[in-house]
């Protein structure tokens, strides 16, 4: 017994430094597979597609070759032959356009001014905000000059419009439905499931569904169109009609996602606060605006961010519904990249995809920086 105890302690004295060394590297070892996977599936494709976006594909005997062309593919999109397709065509500003521009720029200036005069300002924060405002200002200028004039929006602007309209409407509808379902209404369990169904359908299925619904000359809604004498009008041959059809489809499919997240957030709220407010004489609006809304703000910010990022990647609906038509009216950035890629211009396609990445990253970062402090304050 005594001898064996000594043997154990000897082994322990040999083992202890070894174990502590292992402990130190264990973290690295455990994380290594994940790092390798991320490097292989994210970072490497990201870098190689960056290289592809700077090159042009050519055919060679028995294979293909990539020729480095610098920023040619980007120059084509921003200044060259594909500019009208990517950025759109601007027209002379209308009074409405000028008013919208002034209002939005005024808002930007006000926000900057408040930050600059506020207590939390830092040099880095100010530089970041000025930069963000400049980029946002440029995008707003582009939208106003192509949408609110006689010009036409390019794929970048069309995508921005999709994201802005879709996410706002989805959020309002999702929030409304979530607030309805938490009321003690008859059949609320049933509706909770029904409201989720559109999200379960594959996007291509949704696209075909809407393609049939908007067909005024033969689809399932034909009797309705015929009753109102609208069978000679086509949704999908008018640019804004077609965009509207895409947006309605997207809203129909993705409202449930916002609904389910907000429902979960609202259901976990403590009842005491609401009850206390009611006792204090708060009306329904005050309860919502002062108590419920601030408490679901963190969930709101997250779910809207996810939808914004997803919204930028919209492709199934316009592709199936109209193939990006009429003309290029419903073409999103992803569809734009896909169209070019099909003719095997993978350099040009990668350039469009990188422009999308840049815009999504900018919008995502700006959004988070704008709302995170508010969420923190509310929490």
């Amino acid at each position, binding site marked *: 017994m005594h001898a064996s105890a000594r043997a154990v302690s000897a082994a322990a004295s040999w083992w202890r430094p070894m174990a502590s060394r292992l402990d130190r590297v264990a973290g690295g070892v455990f994380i290594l597979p994940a790092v390798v996977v991320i490097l292989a599936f994210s970072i490497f494709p990201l870098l190689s597609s960056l290289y592809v976006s700077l090159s*042009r594909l050519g*055919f*060679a005997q028995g294979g293909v070759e990539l020729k480095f062309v610098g920023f040619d593919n980007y120059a084509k999109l921003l200044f060259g032959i594909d500019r009208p397709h990517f950025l759109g065509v601007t027209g002379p500003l209308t009074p409405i356009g000028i008013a919208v521009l002034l209002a939005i720029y005024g808002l930007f200036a006000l926000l900057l001014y408040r930050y600059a005069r506020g207590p939390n300002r830092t040099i880095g924060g100010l530089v970041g905000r000025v930069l963000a405002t400049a980029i946002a200002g440029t995008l707003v200028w582009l939208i106003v000059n192509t949408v609110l004039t006689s010009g036409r929006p390019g794929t970048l602007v069309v995508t921005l419009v999709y994201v802005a309209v879709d996410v706002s409407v989805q959020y309002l509808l999702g929030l409304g439905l979530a607030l309805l379902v938490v009321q003690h209404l008859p059949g609320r369990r049933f509706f909770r499931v029904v409201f989720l169904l559109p999200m379960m359908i594959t996007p291509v299925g949704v696209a075909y569904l809407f393609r049939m619904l908007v067909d005024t*000359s033969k689809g399932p809604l034909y009797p309705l169109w015929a009753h109102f004498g609208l069978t000679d009008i*086509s949704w999908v041959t008018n640019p804004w009609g077609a965009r509207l059809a895409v947006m309605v489809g997207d809203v129909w499919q993705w409202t449930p996602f916002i609904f389910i997240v907000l429902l979960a957030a609202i259901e976990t709220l403590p009842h005491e606060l609401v009850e206390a407010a009611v006792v204090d004489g708060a009306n329904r609006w005050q309860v919502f605006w002062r108590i419920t809304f601030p408490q679901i703000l963190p969930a709101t910010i997250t779910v809207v961010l996810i939808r914004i990022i997803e919204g930028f990647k919209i492709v199934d609906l316009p592709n199936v519904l109209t193939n990006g038509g*009429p*003309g290029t009216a419903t073409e999103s950035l992803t569809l734009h990249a896909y169209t070019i890629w099909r*003719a*095997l211009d993978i350099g040009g396609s990668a350039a469009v995809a990188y422009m999308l990445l840049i815009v999504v990253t900018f919008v995502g970062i700006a959004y988070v920086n704008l709302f995170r402090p508010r969420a923190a304050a509310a929490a």
Partner: protein
Amino acid sequence: MSRVLAKAVVLLVFVAACSTGSNTSSNQSFSGTTIRVVTFTGPQIAEPLQRRAPDFEKATGAKVQIITVPFSDLYQKLLTDFATKTNSYDATVFDPQWMGDYVPSGYLEDLTDRVKNDSALNWNDIAPFFRDFSATFKGHVYTVPLDGDFQMVYYRKDLLQKDGLQPPATWEDYISIAKHFQGKDLNGDGKADYGSCLAMKRSAQSYWAWISIASAYLQSQGTKQGAFFNTDNMQPLMNNPGAAAALDVYKQLSKIGPPEQLNQDVGDSRGLFVTGRCALSLDWGDIGPLAVDKAQSTVQDKVGAVILPGSKKVLDRSTGQLADCTATLCPYATNGVNHAPFAAFGGWSGAINKAAPAKTKDAAFAFLSYMSQSAQSSVDVTIGKTGFNPYRTSHFNNMGPWTASGMSEQAANDYLGAIKSSLQSPNMVLDLRIPQTAFYQQTALDTALAQFLAGEISLTQCMTQITNQWNSKTDEIGRASQLDAYRSSLSITK
């Protein structure tokens, strides 16, 4: 229990022995070989391949696996597969226009000797145009034609006769007939119908219809004149009064038809025509057999077909202006009208991956030959859903399968006559077949046409846009090499 098992084993051995016996009794030379054939998502083209694969397997022992991908993805799927040496396809039934990309890169098997030595294929029965254009690249045979493609105009014979109208000879005629019938009830269901139904959807098969119209204005001096580029300097023929006239016709037609026309593909326009909702349509040979298909057609024996309408004015390349047809300007005109039938696409054709194993290549060739042989193809070209249109002399001369399919003799003569007159025209327009044809047509031309129809760009902007895009791509690849490719695609002996 074990006795039952033993019996089962004996039975299995017996069955296996029998099946081996039958193998040796018939010619199972490709037993154990699997041929992976890729083509586009049907039902057309894929249907006959899938339907006949089991018969072929029974006859030769080779298993045929048909893989389908959407038409718009087929070009790059094939190219990616070849270029990355994945070689997941042994053979393909594809658009012969893409030979311009695939052959110089060495992806396709040279079939010159094989077609010569295969007596069952009866190579000389295939019409010369398909042998020389769809199958041959720079003097070597790379494909086995399975389909003959010409665009032509279909009209409702009953309606035109009733109103004393002649089938359209020019595009002006086409427009005036379409206007005449637009909004009238053409199939007796009490609903207003359409003068003309065309496919005008973007990223689909619409741009070929515009080329069919433009051909009449752009090419008048015979096939070798070319309808896409100037054969001296590779300048596009897309910015001139001829192209403008064709765009104008196209725009007018977009307004004489179903309200959804801008969002319709050929499947939609065919469906509308054979259900009696349109007086006119422009299509490949598909409407002919579809119109006699009792399952869907309500216009059996009411359909006529004519060669593509032409024009009395054509582009005079020396002045760059539209000019009235004269004997020198339009040597092939009939009654002063220049017809330029467009061999759109060139017909689905089978080709073999050079990198496939030798035995698989033999089996793949045997399968393509089997599909093309008169015994099979004579029946397939009379079935609407195959998407295969006549391409062999025997298809035109042997009326049996046509009348057996339900076409009246007169309808068959009418239909085959329209194809024959296109096929025999010395002023036939060949489809583009140069490196990156897919970009020139499917991307640049298709997008500009869609934007023009949607009113996003004006007629002038449309012509400039096509010209600039084409020139930019030509300069990117190399003007001299593209010019060489274009010229060699036109110098065929017919």
